[in-house]
């Protein structure tokens, strides 16, 4: 082994207090970044997951400024011929007025979103059906699934009860319709199903007087990485100006929701990296103490022939040891926390289950950054060590 590496390693490993303190500073910085990543990246991924599962699929097809008039049967069949496509389903959205009541008294009248779904196709293209905790998913005409909040505001109708909803058709006319509650849906997070009503797409088309029209087609892929390919294939197959189709990947369709989260994550990561800078200052301080305590040894080394760069390398190797041990420890703690979050199905604020992934690229990047930072933090103390003149260093002690 190179003698500078040997001395550097011995200097730090035989000062266990300094080694533990410096390594912990690096490890904790990595852990902070990892915890941030698990929570906030997990939250972001959970939102993306729910947006895919409930709202947009992997590819979301609409028509610019209007409803799709082309047969949904034709479009769904065409899409399902693409190997990457697992399922596709048409949807139509509207709204309905409900009277919110408490103890039988009407307290306010407000509008809730209504999602029209194909009872068969939608089960394949989304997981919305799995959110029904009580009752079943919409199956036949005039059946509705109420979001938990809507159900509460309506005074708590049970499965099997009928409710009366007021819609507006496309011409602005009020349409009153009595519908049967077949299920209550409850979801965590921000996708808003708890505030919505789900019903049979054909019933909703009829109510709003848009027969055979579709507002959107959600496409679920068996390989989510092919979303751009599917989008391009679709737009290539339906280029007609008359159709004016718009196809978006999940990143595009959920852009408004995700943009804010991305900024938040960037900010949180920044906080993590500032934490890492603080750990670098801790390493600088500990390394400076090392240089001070080793002044005489540095003098001896210089006296017996070590050059300034050799002294520099001793403390750089010391920084490498701190960086390596700190990075190893930090990774172990970070991976342990990730495993804990994954195994316990960690939720955000007790509701939304986080989408916890082992992001090895991010872990390795953080490790390398912490390792490099420990070395960079050692440069100044190492430089100070090289400035010690042998005759001055020998006088110390």
């Amino acid at each position: 082994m190179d003698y500078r590496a040997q001395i550097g390693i011995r200097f730090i490993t035989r000062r266990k207090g300094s080694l533990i303190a410096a390594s912990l500073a690096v490890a904790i910085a990595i852990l902070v970044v990892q915890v941030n990543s698990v929570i906030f990246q997990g939250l972001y991924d959970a939102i993306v997951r729910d947006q895919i599962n409930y709202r947009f699929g992997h590819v979301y097809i609409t028509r610019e400024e209007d409803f799709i008039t082309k047969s949904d049967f034709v479009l769904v069949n065409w899409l399902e011929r693409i190997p990457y496509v697992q399922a596709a389903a048409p949807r139509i959205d509207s709204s309905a007025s409900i009277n919110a009541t408490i103890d039988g008294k009407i307290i306010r009248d407000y509008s809730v979103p209504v999602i029209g779904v194909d009872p068969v196709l939608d089960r394949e293209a989304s997981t919305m059906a799995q959110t029904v905790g009580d009752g079943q998913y919409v199956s036949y005409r005039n059946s509705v699934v109420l979001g938990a909040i809507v159900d509460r505001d309506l005074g708590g109708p049970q499965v099997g009860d009928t409710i009366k909803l007021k819609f507006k058709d496309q011409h602005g006319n009020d349409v009153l319709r009595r519908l049967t509650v077949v299920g209550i849906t409850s979801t965590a997070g921000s996708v808003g199903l708890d505030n919505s009503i789900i019903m049979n797409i054909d019933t909703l088309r009829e109510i709003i007087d848009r027969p055979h029209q579709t507002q959107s087609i959600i496409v679920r892929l068996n390989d989510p990485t092919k979303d751009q390919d599917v989008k391009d294939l679709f737009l290539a197959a339906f280029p007609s100006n008359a159709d004016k189709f718009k196809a978006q990947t999940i990143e595009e369709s959920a852009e408004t929701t995700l943009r804010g989260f991305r900024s938040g994550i960037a900010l949180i990561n920044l906080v993590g990296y500032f934490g890492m800078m603080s750990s670098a200052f801790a390493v600088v301080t500990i390394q400076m103490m090392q240089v001070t305590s080793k002044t005489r040894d540095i003098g001896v080394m210089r006296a017996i022939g070590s050059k300034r760069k050799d002294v520099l390398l001793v403390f750089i190797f010391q920084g490498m040891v701190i960086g390596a041990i700190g990075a190893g420890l930090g990774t172990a703690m970070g991976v342990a926390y990730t495993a804990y979050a994954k195994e316990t199905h960690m939720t955000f604020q007790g509701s939304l289950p986080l989408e916890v992934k082992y992001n090895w690229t991010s872990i390795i990047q953080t490790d390398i950054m912490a390792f490099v930072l420990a070395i960079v933090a050692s440069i100044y103390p190492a430089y100070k060590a090289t400035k010690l003149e042998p005759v001055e260093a020998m006088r110390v002690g």
Partner: protein
Amino acid sequence: MADYVLEVKNVDKVYGHGETEVYALRNLSFSVKRGEFMLIVGSSGSGKSTLLNMIGLLDRPTRGKVIIDGVDTSDLNDNELSTFRNSKLGFIFQFSNLLSDLTVLENVTLPRKIQGTVHNSAEEARTLLKTVGLETQMNKFANQISGGQAQRVAITRALINKPSIVLADEPTGNLDSISAETTVQLLKSLNRKLYQTFIIVTHDRHQFGDVDKVVTIKDGRILKEEVEAKMQ
């Protein structure tokens, strides 16, 4: 022509400037032949350690020259001085100054590692340690041995690179009388056995008995220079 291993020519060492100027050494000149055992003696503050620092190239003279093995060291830059110290000089300090984080054997081989000639260095170090009676202590850390043992390790470290001159600054100053006597005898026997030049700074001239040369320093000047100095 004499085989001088060291020539000190008109060396001044001045600290401070202007009114605060202090001469630590003033116009010192002497020379040392190869294989000589020489003492630099003087009372505390006389300038003997400053002189040793100049000879050891740990500090530069303000004026004058230090020539070692025919090389004028004033022409050497910092890196060249380091290399020169490593190959031409061996140091023995008052407090032994071993690296406490290295073992005895690692301390002894350190100059060879710095030089980059590690081949057989461990074997040579073992032989030298055996010479000074420390073959059983080789794998102990430097802070696990006694002061006398540490000083003997320092002597072996000073010899491992076969330097032209071994410099010792009060090598017995921190030892009890028995260890001090052992160290003196060891230095003198190594001088005879290896034909190695030794320059020893001491305030206790009597401890060393008969030597080849004694230079007495007072107030930064040479007070007396004795050749083949016999104890009176």
